[in-house]
């Protein structure tokens, strides 16, 4: 398959997985979906590296599959299991409405193509992913889901960088990866601390701390 077609199909699959995550209320399922999404991104990076004859991109792809596709979800699953949070019912709006709202926002971005001068068409899926990550963060109440939302956001940025015809320096790529991993570990530890301190990781309860 040509490079462009592969990139388009792959980004379509990752966006679909991201959209799927919006309607999921079970935490382990959304973590598995995130792992699948990162794995698909890693495979895309590897294939693009082979097509563009850039071995470093292939290595980054492998690293992404290993770290973001397997290690990070496994760690977060462990954290979720220890904190005993299986279900995240989200904030007030029913899951189908969240799903359709996200779908509508995504459709508007993809169809109207705002800021046409600044954004090439190939960057639209990554902007969509950014949007989906933010929607996950807005519509969820447990801290674990906020972490997952942030990770989806980061996947969107990764999608953008591998879509660029001229490569970003690989060092930057690997640096971002390391940062993300460190962030995930810290976030997990913090979630433990929050849970022990406040006996809940429900972020809507933060407003009880007022006054």
């Amino acid at each position, binding site marked *: 398959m040509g490079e462009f*077609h592969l990139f*388009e*199909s792959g980004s*379509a*699959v990752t966006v*679909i997985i991201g*959209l*799927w995550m919006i*309607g999921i209320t079970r935490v382990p399922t959304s973590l598995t979906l995130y792992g699948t999404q990162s794995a698909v991104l890693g495979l895309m990076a590897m294939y693009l590296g082979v097509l563009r004859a850039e071995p470093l991109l292939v290595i980054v792809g492998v690293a992404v599959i290993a770290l973001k596709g397997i290690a990070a979800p496994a760690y977060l699953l462990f954290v979720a299991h220890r904190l005993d949070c299986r279900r995240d019912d989200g904030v007030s709006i*029913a*899951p*189908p409405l969240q*799903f*359709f709202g996200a*779908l509508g926002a*995504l*459709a508007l971005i*993809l*169809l109207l193509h705002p800021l046409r001068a600044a954004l090439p068409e190939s960057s639209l899926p990554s902007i969509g992913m950014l949007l989906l990550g933010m929607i996950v963060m807005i519509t969820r109440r447990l801290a674990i889901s906020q972490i997952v939302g942030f990770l989806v956001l980061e996947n969107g940025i990764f999608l953008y960088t591998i879509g660029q015809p001229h490569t970003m320096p690989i060092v930057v790529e690997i640096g971002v990866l390391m940062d993300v991993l460190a962030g995930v570990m810290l976030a997990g530890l913090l979630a433990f601390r929050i849970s022990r301190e406040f006996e809940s990781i429900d972020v809507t309860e933060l407003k009880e701390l007022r006054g």
Partner: protein
Amino acid sequence: MTVLLLLIAYLAHIAFLPLLFIGLVRWVKARLQGRRGPSLLQPFWDIAKLLRKGETISETATSTFRLAPLASLAAILAVALMVPWLGLPSPIAGDLILAIYLLAAGKFCTSLAALDTGSAFGAIGASREAAISVQAEPALLLGLAALASHARDSRFSALLAPGGGEHTIILALLVGAAAWLCAMAELSRMPIDDPTTHLELTMVHEAMVLENSGRSLALIEYAVALKTVLLLGLVSQILLILAGNQTLAFHYVLSIVLLAASAVALAIAETVMVKLSWRRVPNMLSYAIGASALACLLVAMRG
């Protein structure tokens, strides 16, 4: 002439395939559960037995109750001759909107029959069936409309033809997923309803036919089997868009193979999955609508 041959072929398959399909599903389920299970031909013997029995009809029921099983069977039969679910072209050149609305006409008749006996079970089943169709019908229609818009024609012969375009794979997969979810919903299969239990909590279709017995029950069971094969055949045809152009015979063989595979998949799903709580069924069906909407988005973006 070809139309006559196709008609005979379709009628022959309609006579045997649906009940064989149900028999296969039950056989695989039994083996998965560690039992020997009934023979593959058991549904045939069941229908034969029912046809020989007399009926017990409620005193509250009127002619609506007597006519409905035949009417819904006629509607489903007409659709079965319009949709190329066997992989061969259909004898009647069917249109996707006509097919879906004819199936709805069948549902109209069975819902009225369920309400006719004054039984609360039947009415609850009918109300749940209506609630499910409110989401499943638009999802199916929208998904097929995405294919139709891509093919610029709403007839099945055109929209199931493997077209060009780089995104046929994702399009076919999305519409196939939506069609599979809608098929599960319309046929009251897992995870929306368990066809083997008769608990009020889990019944949708079974509740509607609770008052039927004897010959009308035979007609209804057969109609449901035909609808199962029809909808799953449609899903197979959508997935076969991925296989590209082949000869008619090869296409036919692949369709039968996919039908058998869907029977096995159905059996596995019913053994492995847990039934969804009724309040969560709209959430699941919204995924079907979402998949169809995504398919439309893809077609809209790529023309």
